[in-house]
């Protein structure tokens, strides 16, 4: 029993159909619990007042925006190396989800920044690199849309994803060089003694879990749709071919 069995679309669909209800349920429960807990049952921050509560949307979406790109990178590598179609379709399915996550992070950041920093937007390294990530996502999706042959599209976007990753990381550190930051340091990291205060920390973890479930559910669901679209196209192609053959036989 190996992981690669799920490269078979039939097995993949069967598994995803079994897992999806749990993922949707997990996402719903975690998001409702986390957001209600975070919004209504945590105290206001000493300095930031109630604006601190946007952290429950901002941090998880920013986290998932980056992780979605990493997932696309891994899926692209699997496609290039092992040529599993499901993997290419999963990368394609993840990109629009990543775009939305990036947008949520940018918009919630702007909404928080207006009262706190006094501005909707600042050319801060973190903000700027997120905007660049957003452009990379747009280019990736546009390239998928522009190419008709699905296998060529998968190959080209996979290589674009690899090259884009290198340049996105490069840009992330180049913008540090270019401007000083306004954004606070990481809210969560594994190697720090102190993160955000515990009252905010636990609901945040629940929200992050909710976003992870939501992302997985969306990607599995969208991948399933892509597989079915591909299958329908193949059926239509076969159908037209057989009717053509019949017509030829009749004419002869």
């Amino acid at each position, binding site marked *: 029993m190996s992981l690669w069995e799920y490269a078979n679309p039939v097995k993949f669909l069967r598994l995803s159909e079994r897992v999806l209800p749990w993922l949707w349920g997990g996402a719903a429960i975690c998001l409702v619990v986390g957001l209600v807990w975070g919004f209504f049952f945590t105290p206001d921050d000493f300095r930031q007042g109630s604006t601190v509560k946007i952290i429950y949307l901002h941090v998880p979406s920013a986290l998932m925006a980056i992780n979605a790109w990493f997932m696309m990178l891994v899926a692209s590598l699997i496609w290039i190396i092992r040529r599993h179609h499901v993997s290419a379709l999963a990368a394609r399915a993840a990109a629009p989800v990543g775009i939305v996550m990036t947008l949520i992070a940018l918009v919630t950041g702007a909404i928080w920044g207006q009262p706190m920093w006094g501005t909707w937007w600042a050319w801060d390294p973190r903000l700027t690199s997120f905007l*660049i990530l957003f*452009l*990379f996502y*747009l*280019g990736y999706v*546009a*390239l998928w849309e*522009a*190419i008709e042959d699905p296998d*060529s599209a998968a*190959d*080209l976007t996979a*290589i*674009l994803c*690899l*090259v*884009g990753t290198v*340049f996105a990381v*490069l*840009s992330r550190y*180049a*913008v540090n*060089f*270019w401007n000083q930051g306004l954004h606070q340091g990481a809210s969560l990291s594994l190697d720090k003694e102190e993160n955000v205060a515990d009252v905010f920390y636990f609901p945040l973890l629940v929200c992050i879990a909710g976003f992870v479930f939501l992302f997985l559910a969306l990607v599995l669901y969208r991948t399933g749709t892509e597989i079915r679209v591909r299958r329908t196209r193949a059926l239509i192609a076969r159908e037209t071919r057989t009717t053509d053959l019949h017509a030829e036989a009749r004419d002869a």
Partner: protein
Amino acid sequence: MRALLLRDLQLALRAGGGFGLGLAFFLIVVVLVPFSVGPAAALLARIAPGVLWLGALLACLLSLDRLLAVDWEDGALDLLATSPLPLEGVVAIKAVAHWITTGLPLVLVAPVLGVLLNLPVAGYGPLVVSLALGTPALSMIGAFGAALTVGIKRGGLLLSLLVLPLYVPTLIFGAEAARRGAEGLETGTPLLLLAGITGCVLALMPFAAAAVLRVNLR
């Protein structure tokens, strides 16, 4: 390889617009800047390095969609792919030819346009050095973008969308070096980082571009 380089250069020269069009575009961008921000000399002096870098970058972008498309359309690219020359070499040579016909003239003409924008005297050296170091990277990254979009009809706009985010690190370090030079600061660090980016791009990007081209020629 040398034959291919000479052929590309000759084609660019004889088709007209190889040298001229990019330069004219660069000139127009620079002329339009005072109209849009006002003719105050102090302001122009402050933004001159950035404007010159941005203008050079856009002028470079302008000619990218013809970099491989001409050879794609008349089938020369298929012949080159079956020739003993590795495709990586072909792409690299194409990028070099693009740099000689577009990047190098931009580097040479940038100081003249600097006069129009009231660039401080100390800024000319760093500007030319940073452009000379950075434009080869722009051509090579552009060749990758051109290889990605060569099979797409009207891929020009898509090409810009794909290539411009990849230009960010080069632009940051190049414009930073030019700006520091104009303000009389030390320019060693950004120039070294810029040279590092260009070196890596020239070493690695031909492989990515050739891989993409092979998919498109399939």
